[in-house]
């Protein structure tokens, strides 16, 4: 293993560990937090009734758990940047502030996305239709230059002040900005699991894998068009054709 690979692993391992813990909690907790919108009856209902069955605190906790499970692995590269460019004694705080800024952006986004999901569900428990419509919106966004621009910006690692308080401010702002670009990239896809009460964990897993595959792609010129995560495809192809898999 190279020195650079060891450095990468130093940040990657704990991040993946926390994410795995969040996935474990999501799978096992189920009723404790609302990672999807629960609808009491299949007919159209008022937002008020939905809120009664989906308490904001529970929704927020579920949202936070979803983010931890799904998004944390996407932060390995920027966290490495924060880690590498900070004084050793400041690294834990700097990384915590970065995650804090990132989480603040996503929790603020949740204040918009969760009501949007409630509104969609209040029209009725015709989940297939709502999921298809949401997926269509996600697909349109996926093919847009705006999504690609957000993906590109998510690869940028700015210079960071070394000494507090400027260092604290910089990593917090970096986390917030990174979160905003991430929201711009992922918001539509994140709606999908929210609208799938019966298969939300499966949807979460599928969206997570897609987002991770997207993040592995290099920046490219924004434009309209379908952009498949080719690297993951090639990686799978290489793996499936390898001797290890055949034997």
């Amino acid at each position, binding site marked *: *293993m*190279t*020195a*650079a*690979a*060891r*450095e990468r692993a130093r940040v990657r391992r704990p991040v993946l560990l926390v994410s795995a813990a969040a996935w474990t909690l999501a799978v096992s907790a189920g009723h404790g937090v609302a990672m999807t919108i629960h609808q009491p009856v299949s007919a159209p209902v008022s937002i008020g009734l939905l809120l009664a069955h989906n308490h904001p605190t529970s929704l927020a906790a579920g949202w936070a758990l979803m983010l931890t499970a799904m998004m944390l692995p996407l932060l390995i590269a920027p966290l*490495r940047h924060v880690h*590498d*460019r*900070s*004084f*050793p*004694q400041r690294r834990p705080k700097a990384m915590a502030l970065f995650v804090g800024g990132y989480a603040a952006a996503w929790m603020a986004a949740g204040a918009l996305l969760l009501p949007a999901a409630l509104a969609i569900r209040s029209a009725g428990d015709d989940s297939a239709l709502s999921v298809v419509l949401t997926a269509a919106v996600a697909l349109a966004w996926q093919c847009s230059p705006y999504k*690609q*621009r957000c993906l*590109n*910006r*998510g*690869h*940028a*690692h*700015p*210079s*960071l*002040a*070394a*000494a507090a308080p*400027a260092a604290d401010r910089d990593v917090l702002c970096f986390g917030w900005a990174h979160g905003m670009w991430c929201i711009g990239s992922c918001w539509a896809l994140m709606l999908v699991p929210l609208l799938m009460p019966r298969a939300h964990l499966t949807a979460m897993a599928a969206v997570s894998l897609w987002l991770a595959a997207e993040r592995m792609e*290099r*920046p*490219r*010129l*924004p434009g309209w068009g379908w952009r498949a995560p080719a*690297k*993951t*495809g*090639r*990686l*799978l*192809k*290489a793996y499936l054709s390898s001797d290890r898999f055949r034997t």
Partner: protein
Amino acid sequence: MSNTNKRYLRRNVWELGSDWGDDILWYARGVKAMKARVLAAPTGWRFYAAIHGIYPPLWTLYGYLTPTDQPPDQGEIDRYWDQCQHGSWHFLPWHRGYLLAFEANIRAAVVAAGGPQTWALPYWNYFKPNQSALPPAFASPDWPDGQGDNPLFVPQRYGPAGDGNVFVDLSQVNLDAMTEPDFTGVGSGGSPGFGGVDTGFEHGGPVHGLLESQPHDWVHGLVGGGDPNNPLLGGLMSDPDTAGLDPIFWLHHANIDRLWEVWRRNPTSHVDPTESQWIDGPASIGERAFSMPMPDGSAWDYTPGQMSDFGTLEYDYDDLAPLAEPAEPTALRLSRLAPEAARSKAFAGVPPMPSEKNVELVGANPQAFRIVGGEARTSVALDPNMRRKVSASLAAAAETQAPDRVFLNLENVRGVADSTALRVYVSARQGANADVGEQFAGHVALFGVRKASLADGPQAGQGLTFVLEITKIIDALHLSDALDVDALDVRIVPILPVPEEAQVTIGRISIFRQGR
């Protein structure tokens, strides 16, 4: 030269017997043949240049792309173009394969014209005495018979001063990289290694390896230079997206390729990476393969592992003798840091410089700043704890035999003028021992900065990061009791004044220690 009976021998362009020795004359004929092919022809001159990188606006500006040009199929573009590996441990093996494929294409044209079947690409060893000037065959618009369409000549070669006098200023290049013990390093502030940082397919990574930085990047900038009528425009060699259009590019890279083999042999402890990710290349991890179009119409995919085994390759160089001063023996550094211990203790046999990879930030300047005009200054505030850690490491050198190495980083350097070149100086702040004045830290050439600054480019606009080793400066400050300071001053002096429109900014200047 090795003792193997290899088929092709790359010779020094300055030692071919005349300015237009056979190897260079046939090279010119081959270049002319490749230049005659259309853009979409995979064995054409422009196609091969686009494999390194293409930026259509610049190509159009220089007349290498016209509205009537038909581009190749998208599949061929995706397979071949924009492939060069920079800021990566694949820099050397990718360029070796690129040279081999290009050489095969030129040779095919040479043989088709009745030339020798053993033709090989010459190299330009600008470090050799009296060989730093551009080889004459490239400097004249005429063939040796006086006819004026010499394909080796390009007008967009401006030289170090931007006046068309093209040479490699030996005061600005060095072979320090040849003393680096490790092929690969880190991108976190310490040594990036002789050959570059462990990456996947990296078409323009932010941190260049030591040989790539010096002399590779610098020679690109010195030869290409900047257009005196428009300082934002560099020569062809100054930008990775136009460099392959200049016929001297290939002789420069043959020399870089030669230096790789020289490094490997001197001493034999210098070895290429053994990790499978390097040996098998980016294709093994789902990324683009290294792929070249060959003269028979086939595509040749290759891996760094295949390029590493020089003995199995069919070419050789006429000179693989050591070029650099031997690495400063660790014993010498230890003796300097601990003269008392050196009298009673044999440091000889201590391996060259520590390879520890614990890299930690020691200090940084407060904010980003622009480079405009003649020079810029900033101050790198040192963290007291980290500074003491470095001092303690140097003080304990006799015992540990592994004192810290120290590196100055110019982070997130952005701009639009790749021909920009900077000198960097370091000095201790007021109150320090006056015996240690300002010290020269190194050169920085912004080769690739335009592309790295594009928000939608491969680096998402984060720019380049340059790493200069300042271990000797820190040693000197330590030995003069001048390291106990709050900050070090850094002065940056452009080789030529930087216009405001070049938009050159440095995000942060930092100092890192690398050690235990």
